[in-house]
């Protein structure tokens, strides 16, 4: 049977655009608390903070076709749409690659968070123990389906962005705007290239292609969900990069592994509002758990759709275990960062941008197969 024909969307309830956007935002902004600001500065030097803004603008190039595809195929996810437009082989190809991409992102991020926690807060607790606890909670959340995931992410995304704003404001004593000069950083050419390549920091927004199928009114809400997903993510990532860029001079920043955590240590407002880095753990764990939960869910739904399974829930646990095992295979924090930013995200740009654009172009030239056809 052709993937997508007959509607293979799982009976998992419905969400509105706020919840859909919240899932994507929670999935995207987790990286802001890890090495992300340092990576931006590496690429853009003093203009590193502009990368999230302009990369978001570049991302519209593939996000817009994705929205059009979802709107024209209500109730279908991107894998199903690919099956209808380009055939089963293309759907399996893209679905598999995207599934592996999600798994990879989940593995590296969980490893990064566990390592950071281990180094900063709980040096005597084994990393594996932290990862297993996180795994259990994220599994439980992912297993509850898209409605629960959406509500939880809405609480979480609002809380996380509020923490970001608070931490940024509380560190205002250390801000120095002179650190933004020269404005173009490494030069217009390199900066422009970084804008294009680093649009992969919004790679998680492609998840809208999966959760968009659950929107209650896809035609009215998909565009809104996409705008808010990208806008809120861009705001959070830019704020992080901007704050870190104003607090640390460029040469120092490239040596700080977790810049936002370091900022929290600089906060000293009065005698009793100081050293908030332990509180940072709460945020870290929150974003880590939510990111992995969303990752497990998206991975399971993607693979279940790819292989025309009737339900996705049995896949959640295997995907979580594979992700956990892959995370344990990564030897250390530095390797996890290299895998995440230099390999997965850099080459993932091709998938993230190429998939919706190519399918949209194809859909303009081909007539979709009829429901139930192609069996």
């Amino acid at each position, binding site marked *: 049977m052709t993937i997508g024909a007959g509607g293979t969307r799982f009976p998992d309830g419905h969400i509105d655009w706020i919840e859909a956007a919240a899932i994507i935002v929670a999935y995207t902004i987790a990286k802001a608390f890890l090495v992300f600001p340092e990576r931006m500065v590496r690429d853009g030097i003093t203009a590193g903070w502009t990368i999230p803004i302009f990369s978001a603008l570049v991302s519209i190039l593939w996000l817009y076709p994705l929205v059009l595809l979802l709107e024209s195929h209500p109730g279908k996810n991107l894998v199903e749409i690919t099956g209808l437009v380009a055939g089963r082989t293309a759907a399996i190809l893209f679905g598999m690659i995207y599934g592996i991409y999600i798994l990879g992102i989940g593995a590296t991020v969980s490893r990064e968070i566990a390592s950071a*926690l281990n180094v900063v807060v*709980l040096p005597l607790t084994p990393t594996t123990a932290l990862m297993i606890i996180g795994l259990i909670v994220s599994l439980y*959340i992912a297993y509850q389906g898209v*409605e629960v995931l959406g509500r*939880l992410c809405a609480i979480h995304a609002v809380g996380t962005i509020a923490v970001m704003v608070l931490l940024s404001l509380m560190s205002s004593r250390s801000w120095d705007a002179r650190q933004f000069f020269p404005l173009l950083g490494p030069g217009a050419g390199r900066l422009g290239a970084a804008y294009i390549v680093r649009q992969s920091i919004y790679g998680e927004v492609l998840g809208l292609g999966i959760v968009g199928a659950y929107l209650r009114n896809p035609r009215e809400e998909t565009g809104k969900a996409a705008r808010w997903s990208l806008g809120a993510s861009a705001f959070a990532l830019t704020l992080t990069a901007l704050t870190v860029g104003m607090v640390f001079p460029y040469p120092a920043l490239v040596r700080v592994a977790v810049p936002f955590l370091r900022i929290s240590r600089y906060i000293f407002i009065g005698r*009793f509002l100081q050293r908030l880095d*332990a509180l940072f753990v709460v945020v870290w764990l929150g974003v880590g758990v939510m990111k992995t939960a969303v990752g497990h869910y998206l991975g399971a739904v993607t693979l279940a759709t790819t292989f025309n399974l009737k339900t996705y829930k049995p896949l959640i646990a295997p995907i979580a275990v594979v992700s956990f095992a892959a995370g344990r295979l990564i030897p250390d924090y530095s390797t996890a960062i290299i895998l995440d930013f230099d390999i997965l995200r850099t080459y993932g740009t091709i998938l993230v941008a190429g998939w919706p654009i190519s399918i949209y172009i194809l859909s303009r030239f081909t007539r979709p197969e009829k429901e139930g056809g192609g069996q």
Partner: protein
Amino acid sequence: MFPFGAIKRAFRRPSRPADFTLGKRGEPGIPGGGEDVVRGVHRERRPFRSGTISRSPFGGMSETEREDLGRRLDKSLRENISTIMDTFHAPRNSDLTVREIEINWRDGRRRAVCLFIDGLSDLETIRRHVLAPLLSMDHDAGRSSVDPRCLAKKVLSGTFVDFGDTFSEVVAAIVGGETVLLVDGEDLGVIVQTRNPEHRAIVESPAEAVVRGPHAGFVENFRENVTMIRLLLETPQLVTEQLHVGARSHALFGIMYIEGIVNPKLVDEVRRRITSVESGLLMTMTILERLIEDEPYSPYPVMLVTERPDRVASMLAEGHVAIVDSSPSVAVVPVTLWTLMQSPEDYYIHFVAASFVRVIRWAALLSTLYASSLYVAIVTFHHEMIPTELLFTIAASREAVPFPAALEVVVMEAAFELIREAGVRIPTIIGPTLGIVGAVIIGQAAVTATVVSPILVVVVAISGLASFAIPNYELGVLLRMTRFAMILAAAALGLPGVTMLSVFLLARLCIMRSFGVPVLAPVLPSWRHSADTFLEGPLWIMRKRPQTARPLEDDRQPQRARPVKPGESVRRGRVPERRERR
């Protein structure tokens, strides 16, 4: 006393299922089937809707006995009384009262009996409206009263009169507190409403006391409870459906809602759940709650159980459904977390003050949940979080304490719970004294004995006091229990443990539903909600009903609910002009 003994059913008629004769549920004009709308007669009798007597009060009987009760009444009074007395195990069971009388009938004097249960039925009503008219009935009246139906129309002066032609119906009526009149030679029983069990006077609910606002609380009387709600909602749209629940107790429950506002699907769901209960347990509101709630294994309250009529009335006006019984607790569904954190008094004080109190209440919720666990996490794992001076103070106070912080906290919290529980059980006069003295003495003694640190007593006191500020009792109990889990999580992993457990609890909250409505609605999922969801907004801007119960009618009040604009002064002696409604 009748010489009943060995006279048994010589001529047993073929058993017939006891029909619900006076209008079935689903028929036009009969919303629930419990009230006889067709005849204009209000009944509080057992509706044998299912067509069998399996859902009757005769649970525990053998099949043969059930079949016997499904029979039609006999023309022989002796036969009828024999069967009824056997059913009630009389005369061994002294509750059943059989009042034998002779009445004038069309063909001379006829024997008759009034059957009722002493205590359940009002003796004065029986005397004035049943016995007196019957005994004073002259021959002419008797002549014209050709059957029990005419007797009910012309002689009996009871307010509500009904008929029963099967043993199951008359037995159910007697059990329900009504009086059954059986006449020799007639196979139709007359049921007169005389139910009026003793109940206490209307007093304020101690659990939901308010400084301002009405002080009336529900009592142990179904009719009284319904009346209290009806007094606040004087509208013909307010509907009370009566249902009988439970295989053995066959308790009376009422579903109340405002027709036109309530979502019919919600009413159907409530009705379906209640009528599907087949339990043999003694059916009270709390037991029914356990049997019909969405998540039976979760202690999270998914029904708002309140003792205040004003609270029920206000929620009915928002499209909720109330379940009333003969207990001082009325359940309202669906209910959200935001409703559980509201107190009736919020609407009797200024909205700014109410908002302030709400913030305090939410802070209390967080304190109950996290004060002790954060103390354990910080003292055990995250010393760097606290300012140095405070760290030294804590370290100095804990220097002589031989136990780890987690054990200290658990012991103190357990002691606090012990005092609270003991304070509830012991007599009222010394209860509060024991609570205060116990807390002070145990706390002071524990500090002096260096079993706990002084700062811990402060933390536990804050946590314990905060739990009293939660307006919903069940939510308060849940928070107190969860507090211990938080302490253990903090002791095991510090802040990461607390975070993980919090995420898990949040996920549970996102899953929970109250009669199909997510408990975080209308915030998550984001539905339209009024300005009193989290804080209390001005009453006049709450134009629309919240979407929590998905009401049929959205508008709660016109756009200009206030006759004057906020800040607009009114000249003395002049009534402000009426504004056009938009």
